[in-house]
């Protein structure tokens, strides 16, 4: 049989497609950064202008470093939380894992040196992530409940191993001191850790089949499975990765405070990371989000906190302002997308 339509004349549609104008440079930059991110950028610029006009010290290189190091820990968690959210899940236990890793890294370090301290904490993080993943995949427990439960459990374990006390002293160790205060090419090592991880995740998500499949699983897990993706493996893998990165965050907490903290410094990081990811445009239903957006959100939140403290805003007003600005930032972002104002936004 002859394919009856093979020689079809060009239709209007084909022409239409062909005639689509080449995007201008401005448009191309726009699409690379993304519309959502542009609103974040605008928000950041506005905030910087306001704060800087009140106190020019804000622009000091020192202060930029302060902001960078202040957001490093929560930024790490926000980056991995973004990956988890893109996959359509959530990890509420990241803070607890960080605490557990912080205290164990310091304890192992005390008896066996920094290398084993780091390796041990990372291993523990991977294990915690694996446990999360297994509870979810094989126990069929909703990710929120599962990680809420392990939030409590890992925290308990951290307290048990440390008897609730800060453990060890890493302030005299070269490696930990470098992590806490060292710089490379003028950039503090804490910030480097965040940059390296963020770039890595960005590349994985955008340019590898692994990343693509994570988006697919989050977008429609049934379809992904039928298209040959081993979705269980992805869920386990992402949770393990998250556990490992949370452990890195824990090691950074140890380095910064000079001792292993079972709870202090890591409580509440889960909400912070979710806030940053969502503000950065990750949809909690899965399938959507970018590392770029999350990093911009982390920066925005970091500047906000730093600026308000710098301007000596009372802590209570800081809460109000933070909540208010968060809402405004997201509203601007959403209204730009021109969505209809009906029902629950994704």
């Amino acid at each position: 049989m002859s394919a009856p339509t093979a020689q079809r004349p060009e239709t209007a549609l084909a022409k239409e497609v062909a005639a689509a104008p080449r995007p201008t440079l401005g448009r191309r930059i726009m699409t690379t950064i993304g519309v959502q991110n542009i609103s974040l950028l605008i928000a950041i610029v506005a905030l910087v202008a306001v704060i800087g006009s009140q106190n020019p010290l804000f622009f000091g290189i020192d202060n930029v470093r302060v902001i960078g190091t202040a957001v490093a820990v929560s930024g790490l968690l926000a980056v991995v939380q973004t990956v988890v959210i893109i996959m359509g899940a959530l990890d509420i236990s990241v803070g607890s894992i960080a605490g557990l890793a912080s205290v164990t890294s310091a304890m192992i370090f005390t008896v066996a040196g920094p290398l084993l301290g780091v390796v041990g904490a990372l291993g523990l993080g991977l294990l915690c992530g694996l446990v999360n993943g297994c509870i979810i995949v094989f126990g069929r427990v909703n990710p929120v409940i599962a990680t809420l439960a392990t939030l409590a459990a890992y925290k308990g374990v951290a307290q048990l191993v440390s008897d609730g006390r800060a453990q060890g002293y890493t302030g005299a160790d070269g490696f930990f001191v470098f992590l806490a205060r060292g710089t490379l090419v003028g950039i503090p090592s804490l910030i480097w850790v965040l940059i390296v991880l963020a770039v890595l995740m960005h590349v994985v998500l955008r340019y590898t089949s692994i990343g693509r499949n994570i988006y697919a699983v989050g977008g429609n897990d049934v379809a992904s499975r039928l298209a040959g993706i081993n979705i269980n493996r992805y869920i386990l893998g992402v949770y393990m990765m998250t556990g490992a990165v949370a452990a890195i965050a824990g090691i950074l907490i140890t380095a910064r405070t000079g001792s292993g903290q079972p709870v202090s410094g890591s409580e509440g990081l889960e909400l912070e990371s979710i806030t940053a990811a969502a503000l950065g445009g990750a949809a909690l239903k899965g399938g959507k989000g970018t590392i770029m957006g999350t990093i911009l959100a982390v920066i925005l939140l970091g500047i906000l906190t730093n600026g308000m403290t710098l301007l000596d805003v009372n802590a209570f007003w800081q809460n109000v302002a933070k909540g208010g600005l968060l809402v405004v930032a997201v509203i601007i972002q959403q209204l730009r997308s021109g969505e209809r104002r009906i029902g629950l936004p994704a």
Partner: protein
Amino acid sequence: SGQETAPAASAAGPKSGKLTIAYLQKQGDQQYFVDEADGAKAAAAELGDVDIKVVNLGTDANKAISEVDSVIAQKVDGIIIVVPDQQIGPQVIQAATAAGIPIMASDDVIKDASGAEAAFAGFDGTAMGNAVGTKAAELYKSAGWSAADTRILSAYKQDLSVCGQRVDGAKDAFTKAVGSDAPSIVDIGTDNSATDAQNKAGAVITANAGVKNWIVWGCNDENETGVVTALQNSGVAPASIVGVGLGAYLTCKDWAAGQQTGNKAALFISGVEVGKAALTSMVGLVRDGTPLPAKSIAKTAIVDQSNWQAEGVVCT
């Protein structure tokens, strides 16, 4: 400390046999309170035939009420409580008195509805602050700094009333000791963790560029060490920092390692001792009818690099 009998103490008579004492603590997962519970347990073991039930209340006033109800329902023989918020004192005392169970406050004073204080063991927040402020003033004066190029950084969780009492106490004692020409104070609102103190202090240090010398105190050791670390990270020499910690469990780490540090001193309160004292008094009341001493003030000490070990600070 006086010898009058506290109002709640008359509730129960002598009792023999096995005793159960409830020790309810705010922030029971913090090192100081863990120590306190350990002290109470040790005293219980020493006294013999005493069971001790330790309950962590977190910072939750509502949970405190629930847990008081709960231990009353379990018919414990005595209640020792560290309240998360002193305003709940009347409710707590009322509940225990109604059930005929003797109650005693530990670490934070509580009053009943008429304003009468319950028996107390420990060292209250204002007194802690006073000790810190006095030490800071002493170090400030001996450093010979001028008020104009010195700032006081006071880091604490601002919605926690006990924190407010501590830093207010420090401020009062400091100004009293230094006089009118005291350096100005910058409050830093934190979540009581060392990392947050570091982050927030970073911004404050930026805002106060040009300041030469710094005095640091806070609601706990986390706050104080966090701020000192931020100062040192921003290039301030340890010699230009007078940090007075509260608790000594983190400040001791620098000292143990022999580091040059801005953490110059710290107030050490032995939680173990408070726990022992509180439990011993309570058992004395229930078993022998010995009235609770209205106030047993805990042994405290200002420690520094030279004497922390001798004073009994345990550094993990």
